[in-house]
């Protein structure tokens, strides 16, 4: 390693560390705004800035060093109490942080990048001078913030306890769902969400967090390595279950015991390795905090952003992908949801609007709730706009629920004019598509004049699912357990065969269209199933439907794997997994298969449809 390489390496390390420092600093600034007199917070910020300045200069990144130096001067007079960090000062601090993180991002790409910091430095200098001219300001703003001041007043800052040692805790939502297998995977290292965030209001705790920074003993590992580990653990799990099958026939008690123990250890190793991908939702919460602050100031609205559940853990992949949808929803809540102050006062509401973000786990799902106490959605207005924009036809009849979902239609926007914040009509349909890609759903509840709540349901992870393993004609398939509503043995069920509509399974109070999985997969003619077969009932489409399988072989947590890119577009499959025998097994998306089959049900194709899988594509092409 020559000296130059060594220097570059040092700079790279610095840039990585700087990114973390910046995140911490930003968090502290927002805290400072609510808590302008807390010396612990100011000291921490000062220390972080000082570290940043020192290390930047140390590795030869002088521009970052110089800029931070100016910032440090400003922080120094805040620390000495010569200036109170009011709204505008915090704004300046945040702007400076943005500038530093911009520099760092650019330097990561190109170590020789240069920057123009003159304007911002002048602003900082001006703030320092302005204060020296008006030293009386110190006492004026102390105590509780002026309620008429137009500013964001977040009641709590999520995740200020980043480095705080936590005793492992079960969260309430999980305890309620003991039958839920996926949740149990991560029970040990999850924390009680609600109490967690309340602690933040306690200044002593915050101070504690600020001083315990040094206790953090985490190491950073690349995601690729974690993924490799998970893949190999997956292999061990498969081998272990093969071992268990072999040992089932043995009379050797010693061997049996060892195999059992290996099984338990394997399960633990799998749980831990899967949990490595799980990260708290906190970074998103921080980002949103900032967005609400900036948005509300730009809109001249007074908005109180209340969050809980920032410690809720989720798969790293999901975390990256949930960001954009949440930003859109929160911005919309601030812009379209919360009314102007005059309107709020006229309606007899508090002039301060409220936007609430909750994250929690429920029934093996991750839930995000975005609530505002704004004007609510007016279904009639939505329908009117949709008609005028040609989103729906002029004579369309929609119920209130469908009308509300119009906001997710492409090209739909209710804002009278396009603002910087939103109103271009691209946001909400992006929200919906992003969520669908993550196998998530979104629902709306809204009342005119009272407010709107969006509820997002997501799987905890895309990497493992609870699967029901079924067999059809000696092939094994996996059906995500979350989609299964119930199962019925055909021998004890009543089936009505109808002309033109196929078979109907009579449930207690309703009817379900009956499909045969072998037939859905084009493996056999409909109706050729064993009368002892089992029907699985799904309620994932508008109408309940039932799918017949030859047998249910069990219920397993399965590690999902993607099919090769060349066959990923196949309908009805959401992926693949490897079962205990080492063979791949397909994970079915029954809704897709049934939707497709309903299309095919037109009588003219039904008779001559080729049931062999290999010719189906060709047949369809000939028919068309």
């Amino acid at each position, binding site marked *: 390693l020559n000296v130059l390489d060594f220097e570059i390496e040092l700079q790279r390390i610095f840039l990585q560390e700087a990114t973390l420092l910046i995140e911490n600093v930003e968090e502290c600034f927002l805290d400072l705004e609510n808590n302008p007199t807390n010396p612990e917070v100011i000291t921490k910020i000062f220390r972080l800035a000082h570290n940043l300045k020192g290390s930047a200069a140390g590795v030869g990144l002088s521009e970052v060093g110089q800029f931070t130096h100016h910032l440090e001067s400003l922080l120094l007079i805040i620390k000495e109490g010569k200036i109170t960090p009011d709204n505008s000062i915090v704004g300046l601090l945040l702007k400076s942080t943005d500038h530093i993180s911009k520099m760092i991002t650019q330097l990561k790409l190109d170590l020789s990048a240069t920057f123009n910091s003159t304007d911002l430095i002048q602003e900082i200098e001006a703030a320092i001078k302005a204060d020296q001219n008006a030293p009386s300001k110190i006492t004026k703003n102390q105590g509780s913030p002026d309620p008429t001041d137009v500013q964001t007043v977040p009641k709590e800052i999520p995740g200020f306890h980043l480095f705080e040692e936590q005793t492992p805790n079960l969260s309430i939502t999980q305890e309620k769902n003991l039958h839920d297998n996926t949740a149990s995977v991560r029970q040990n290292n999850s924390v009680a969400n609600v109490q967690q965030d309340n602690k933040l209001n306690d200044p002593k705790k915050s101070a504690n967090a600020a001083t315990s920074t040094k206790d953090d003993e985490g190491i950073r590992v690349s995601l690729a390595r974690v993924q490799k580990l998970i893949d190999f653990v997956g292999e061990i799990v498969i081998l272990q279950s093969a071992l268990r099958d072999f040992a089932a026939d043995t009379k050797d008690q010693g061997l049996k015991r060892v195999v059992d123990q290996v099984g338990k250890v394997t399960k633990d190793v799998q749980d831990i390795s899967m949990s490595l991908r799980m990260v708290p939702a906190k970074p998103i919460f921080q980002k949103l905090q900032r967005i609400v602050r900036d948005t509300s100031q730009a809109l001249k609205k007074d908005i109180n952003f209340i969050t809980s559940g920032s410690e809720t853990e989720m798969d790293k992949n999901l975390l990256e992908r949930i960001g954009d949808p949440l930003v859109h929803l929160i911005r919309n809540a601030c812009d379209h949801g919360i009314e102007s102050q005059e309107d709020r006062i006229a309606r007899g509401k508090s002039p301060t609007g409220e936007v609430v973000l909750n994250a929690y786990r429920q029934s093996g799902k991750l839930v995000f709730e975005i609530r505002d106490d704004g004007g609510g959605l007016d279904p009639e207005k939505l329908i009117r706009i949709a008609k005028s924009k040609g989103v729906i036809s002029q004579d369309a009849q929609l119920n209130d629920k469908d009308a509300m979902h119009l906001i997710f239609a492409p090209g739909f926007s209710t804002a009278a004019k396009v603002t910087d914040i939103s109103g271009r009509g691209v946001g909400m349909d992006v929200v919906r598509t992003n969520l669908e890609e993550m196998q998530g759903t979104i629902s709306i509840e809204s009342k005119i004049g009272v407010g709107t709540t969006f509820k997002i349901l997501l799987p905890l992870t895309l990497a493992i699912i609870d699967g029901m393993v079924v067999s059809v004609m000696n*092939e094994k398939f996996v059906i995500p357990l979350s989609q299964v509503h119930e199962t019925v043995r055909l021998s004890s069920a009543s089936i009505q065969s109808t002309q033109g509509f196929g078979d109907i399974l009579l449930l207690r109070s309703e009817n379900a269209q009956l499909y045969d999985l072998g037939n859905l997969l084009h493996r056999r003619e409909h109706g050729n199933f064993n009368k002892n077969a089992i029907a699985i009932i799904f309620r994932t489409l508008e109408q309940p439907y039932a799918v017949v399988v030859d047998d249910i072989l069990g219920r397993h947590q399965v590690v999902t794997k993607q*099919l090769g890119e060349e066959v990923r577009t*196949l309908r009805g499959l959401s992926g693949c997994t490897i079962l205990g025998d080492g063979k791949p097994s397909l994970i079915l998306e029954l809704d897709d298969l049934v939707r497709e089959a309903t299309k095919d049900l037109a009588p003219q194709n039904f008779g001559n449809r080729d049931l062999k899988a290999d010719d189906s594509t060709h047949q369809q092409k000939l028919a068309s």
Partner: protein
Amino acid sequence: MSDLKSDTDVNGNHLLLKKLFGEQHADQRLLSFSLGTEKFALPLLAVREVISVIDFTPLPFTPNYILGVINIRGQIITVIDLGTRLSIIDKSHRSEAAVIVCESGNIRVALMVDSIDQVINPEPQDIQEKPEVESSIRSRFVKLIYRKDNTIITLIDTAKILNVDTFMDSEINQAA
């Protein structure tokens, strides 16, 4: 005069080799295998491994040459029956069947062949453009042939076989 001509030929053949292996690749060896009574080859560089035929899981709604998926050390790999893909009807030589795992770009696919033959290190003059009269069914996947003495080996274009856009397009088989 004749010297000059053969020189151009060799240069032309160098170009053909580049077509087959790309600009940089020093390794120009071929892995040859049989399908029916014919011989084929792939650039060895594209080959990840050769394994014996294992039980595969069929994929629904795929053309007949897609046999299904297999698990190779935790990775799910699609297997295609190369003989069927190339419209070779003779399936009586399958007792030594093997699976060649090969890749092109991001795609990794397993090709089932009747038997593995050998590794060939071709000289530039052994590689030729495919004659125009070649049966058109497989013309899409074949651009070059290897010819030495009386041996003719058809060189498979891996990029064409392992193309995401046309992978499941069985019409290629039916066309022409």
